[in-house]
């Protein structure tokens, strides 16, 4: 137990990863439906080094997803800029990023195509990219599925497998595109806590094998601390970083981490801030209602 507590120095981020750093600089997003301007993101700046698992923690509806959508290129920003590896994604001159296979989103409700088998879903990205031959793609897809413990479900439709396995298929589908950044939008929200714990370990395993940067939105603190190198705790709407919590528990981690003293310390440190924001969001909601 003490071993974990004494190791106060944050484990340097996966150093072999050199691509996928994100610089979110002073981003503002104002929705303007019918002239009623609603600020979703308020002068938000976050620096994410390549290879980091960055957990964005905040109450529901605080505008975290808006930020994720801006990085993915699903909608524009009002001002500010976002760079990936020093290259402009969106900013002055081009307020909406071009969606690309270097930034793949794993959606909250899952976006596997129900009419394609799991194998065809996983092969979709490379088939669209057209860089490899069909047989190469399917060979790679089968290998990746086997590595993720998905053997035997290749010819099933997503509707035929459990929601936990579906999430895994979706992550594998994302990885098939060789993304630099994986964008997770509360992907485990709908899972029960037992399935969740299995999924967390599986995700870390996938992360250790594949060199990617992870931008992960959640409102589950335990999930955030278990997975992340860093927690960016966001204020309630408009969304803005309020506190950054370094998780100095070394990787690779497994579930024993959850019961460590350091985990509990970080938990209590973060919980106060999160609770305060949740209360604010709740009160704001009360007023609106």
């Amino acid at each position, binding site marked *: 137990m003490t071993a974990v507590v004494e190791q106060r120095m944050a484990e340097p981020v996966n150093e072999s990863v050199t691509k996928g750093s994100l610089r979110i600089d002073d981003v503002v997003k104002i929705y303007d439906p019918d002239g009623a301007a609603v600020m979703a993101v308020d002068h938000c700046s976050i620096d994410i080094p390549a290879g980091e698992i960055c957990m964005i923690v905040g109450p529901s509806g605080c505008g975290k997803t808006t930020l994720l959508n801006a990085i993915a290129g699903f909608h524009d920003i009002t001002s500010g800029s976002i760079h990936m590896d020093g290259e402009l994604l969106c900013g002055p001159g081009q307020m909406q990023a071009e969606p690309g*296979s270097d930034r793949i989103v794993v959606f909250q*409700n899952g*976006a596997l*195509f129900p*009419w394609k088998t799991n194998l065809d879903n996983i092969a*979709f990205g490379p088939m669209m990219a057209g860089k490899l031959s069909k047989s190469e793609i399917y060979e790679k897809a089968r290998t990746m599925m086997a590595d993720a413990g998905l053997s035997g479900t290749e010819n099933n*439709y*997503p509707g035929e497998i459990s929601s936990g396995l579906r999430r895994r298929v979706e992550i594998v589908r994302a990885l098939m*595109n060789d993304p630099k950044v994986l964008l997770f939008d509360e992907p485990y929200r709908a899972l029960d806590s037992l399935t969740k714990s299995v999924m967390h370990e599986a995700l870390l395993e996938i992360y250790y094998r594949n060199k990617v940067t992870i931008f992960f939105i959640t409102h589950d603190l335990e999930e955030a601390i278990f997975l992340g190198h860093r927690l960016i705790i966001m204020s309630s709407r408009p969304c803005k970083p309020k506190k950054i919590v370094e998780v100095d528990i070394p990787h690779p981690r497994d579930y024993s981490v959850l019961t460590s003293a350091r985990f509990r310390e970080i938990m209590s440190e973060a919980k106060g801030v999160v609770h305060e924001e949740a209360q604010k969001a709740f009160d704001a909601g009360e007023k609106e209602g």
Partner: protein
Amino acid sequence: MSLKKFADKIFSRAALRGIVAIVIFLIIWEIGARSEQLFGYRFPFLGLVPPPSDVLVSWAGLIGDPSYWQSWYMSFLRVFGGFIAAMLIGIPLGLFMAVNKTFYGMYFPTFEILRPIPPLAWVPASIIFWPTQELSIAFVTFLGAFYTIVINVLGGARSINKQFLQAAQSMGASQWDIFRRIVLPATLPSIVVGSAVGMGITWEVVVAAEMISGGGSSGGGAGGGLGFFIWSSYVGGSYEQIIVGMISIGIAGYLSSELLRQAGGLLTPWLKTR
């Protein structure tokens, strides 16, 4: 399917229940229809209907009659002619309205004004417009399926999960790929549902159209279709044949729907898993 499985299916509990229900229905009908002979009192409604045994005898006489089968053939021809035309025009139209806002804005109001007009209200106009009666009947059946198919395709294509489109876009799919690999398969279930409902309507419409227009270009009698078959049986006073015609339409409609269900199942295999 093995013979054993086939036998199991026929003698399954559900199938037996169905058979028992039909037999009880036929017995009640037979007793009701013969109530005057049996009890000296004519049951209301049922007492006026020919008994099923007489209907069967009349039907047996028709089985060898080519003009009876000609009626089947004509009605099927009109139903499928109108239906296929409705699919060929309705599916692309619905999809195009879903993806093109300008076209939607231009065409949808007109569509919505025309849609509530019942296909049968088109009968006189279409007899005037089309050169042959055959074409006017086909046009009216076409209308029966057309609106339902367009509305379903449009609704299906517009309610696609946006995240499917975003995911495909992120993975480098072109506009054409998105249409062909996402929009089209995502809309298929709605196309199948719209077609099934549309098929039901075409049978309703074709029968009425045949009755009104007098059975098409052949001028009635043989070749007039099942609707005209019922009408001429009524005029000729053969009440058994009216029932035969009605049941024939029931069977024809069921066969068409089943055909569509099978085709729909093959087109959307992923839905079986739900």
